[in-house]
């Protein structure tokens, strides 16, 4: 029985909803020798050991794509009922919030948070925030093991999230203002930055994510 159970486990599944460059996430896992499958299949999602919700692009389009591919229901079941650990990256993270100013639409609502647009009076801080930035680590000792405050991660975003509950915040970053650069609520994780594009520190973080359990 255990043998069958092992076979049916999918490992890491990268959810394919037609937004952005999924291959770069898969390649990052290949580099650390952890198999990760790109899939839009509900069965794969429900039997995954861990899920990745990546994505680049418009929030409204992201929600629309998830809905039109019939992925919202299996994702809700996997994340809220089966408590499968999931990591949202960039847009994938923002989609987990309750609402976004980008298109003024509701998100998946898995975390008490809102997605807002950067808006600065001066043009000293350009939008999108594109480049390397550090993380000020508040929580998440296991996930951020071996990562320190000097390590820089790759960001590309015009929108950021605000968490209602302070204790959900893992890290904060400053770009013209303080914003949440990663969060965790139960089995749900989100990174605003791209670990898959952050070279060695990013790979270290993905390795931590792949290896830890709650």
């Amino acid at each position, binding site marked *: 029985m255990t043998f069958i159970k092992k076979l049916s486990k999918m490992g890491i599944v990268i959810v394919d909803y037609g937004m952005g460059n999924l291959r770069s996430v898969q390649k990052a896992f290949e580099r650390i020798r952890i198999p990760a499958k790109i899939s839009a299949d509900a069965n794969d999602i429900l039997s995954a050991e861990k899920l990745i919700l990546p994505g680049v692009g418009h929030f409204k389009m992201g929600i629309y794509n998830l809905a039109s591919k019939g992925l919202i229901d299996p994702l809700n079941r996997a994340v809220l009922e089966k408590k499968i650990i999931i990591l949202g990256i960039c847009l994938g993270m923002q989609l987990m919030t309750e609402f976004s100013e980008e298109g003024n639409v509701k998100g998946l609502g898995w975390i008490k948070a809102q997605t807002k647009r950067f808006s600065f009076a001066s043009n000293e801080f350009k*939008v999108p925030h*594109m*480049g390397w930035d550090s993380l000020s680590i508040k929580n998440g000792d296991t996930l951020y093991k071996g990562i320190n405050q000097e390590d820089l991660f790759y960001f590309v975003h015009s929108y950021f999230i605000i968490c209602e509950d302070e204790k959900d915040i893992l890290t904060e970053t400053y770009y013209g203002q303080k914003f949440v650069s990663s969060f965790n609520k139960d089995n749900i994780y989100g990174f605003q930055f791209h670990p898959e594009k952050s070279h060695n520190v990013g790979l270290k973080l993905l390795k931590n994510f792949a290896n830890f359990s709650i």
Partner: protein
Amino acid sequence: MFRPRIIPVLLLKGSGLVKTQQFRKSSYIGDPINSVRIFNDLEADELIFLDILAAKENRTISFDLVKQIGDEAFMPFAVGGGIRNLKDAAAMINAGAEKVVLNTIFIENTEVITEISKTFGNQSVVVSIDAKENLFGDYKIYIKDGLKKIALHPMIAAKKAEDFGAGEIFLNSITHDGMMQGYDLELIKQVSESVNIPVIACGGAGNLSHMKEAFKNGANALAAGSMFVYHGPRKAVLINYPEKKELISYFN
């Protein structure tokens, strides 16, 4: 602490890498895929590939080559050269490119910028502005690899690109290209002040001090060609990239 991106720009003539001076006098550098592998090892932030013959020859940068780059590159990369519509852009992005660089089409059919931006998000649309200063200190922009002059100031062009949905401006100085004597700081300053989106400065970088000057003058990212493909006063071909520690100390 924000650190700007340092971006090698690799020019292609079809399938070979070249480097130019003032958009002319191109010299052969080597094989693009091999250079991607080296930049992987050196942990380059991002790469830009531009086929400088594509627009003139009415074709796009080779789709097969973009796919090969996509299979190799561990960093985000942008591609440009003859991309004329949403279909071309989609093909490049699906082949693994994060961004497309648009130049000629930005002037000839600006709506295409909006279309691509709406489909893939503005972070994937880079408008390239090639600028040159005339004898009277007045800047104008050029298309078709610097061959055709357009009666538009780079500041106006950059603002227009932003309004139509570009997520970044890739600003090239034609006169400074390949000279390695420093960026055109006045041009960078003017254009950066006129837009709210990031400006990638290019043309003239010879060392990290040049990059720091450009950053101080408003550039959000620093690009260079010669600096990353040549080594030493005799300009021996050698792919190189600064160390992370060096970058952090420079831009802190």
